[in-house]
């Protein structure tokens, strides 16, 4: 958590990142940028899922509909914040010549998406009574 707060400071202080280590080959930075954008698209897709649940499942009971939509929107926000945090950590690791950071986040996100998908299948199969 303290590490996360330290990274948040780096989000807004580009010159601090540039002070550390050496500038890596620009192609590595571009690859890191594309990974960041891919995670950002994942976040946007989750947010879109939240909108879709709200709009296209109007017959669902209110609690379920709002709960699923908020879960997807929240997952999207987490995914977006984590995307920029991971990007900063990778950029810094490349400048310092360290190993790239590892993360449990992809596995956790996979589990969350699987649980949401199963919940939606169950809701569709068990009917819509509201």
């Amino acid at each position, binding site marked *: 958590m303290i590490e996360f707060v330290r990274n948040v400071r780096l989000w807004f202080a580009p010159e601090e990142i540039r002070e550390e280590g050496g*500038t890596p080959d620009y192609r590595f930075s571009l690859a890191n940028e594309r990974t960041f954008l891919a995670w950002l698209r994942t976040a946007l897709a989750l947010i879109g899922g939240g909108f879709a649940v709200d709009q296209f499942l109007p017959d669902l009971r209110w609690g379920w509909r709002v709960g699923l939509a908020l879960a997807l929107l929240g997952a999207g926000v987490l995914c977006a914040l984590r995307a920029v945090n991971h990007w900063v950590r990778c950029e810094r690791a490349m400048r310092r010549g360290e190993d790239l950071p590892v993360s449990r986040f992809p596995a956790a996100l996979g589990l969350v998406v699987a649980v949401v998908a199963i919940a939606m299948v169950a809701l569709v199969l068990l009917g819509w009574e509201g």
Partner: protein
Amino acid sequence: MTPPRAAAERDPGLQPERTRLAWRRTTLTGAVIAVLAVKSALHGGAPPSGIVAAALCTGVWLGLLGLAHRRIGALAAPRPVALAPRAAVTAVLCAVALAVCGVALVL
């Protein structure tokens, strides 16, 4: 878009081009979300709050588009500099703003 000045030095892996396309995909995804948000906001007779939310979401998407446009311009340089953290944070804040609009529309 200005063509790369040092065509001879171009990266054979086409990394700047791939990064440019990644930005394009991201703006397209943002467009889908903005359309869903506007549709949701104007659902049921377009109340004033819905119009405000729709305008906000459109503005956020235009901001993301402008950010991508500037970055794509920077990527046309022979040796593009790394993405500025401020630009990365702004892109993420655009996504978060869309999600906040979503929460407001759901509740």
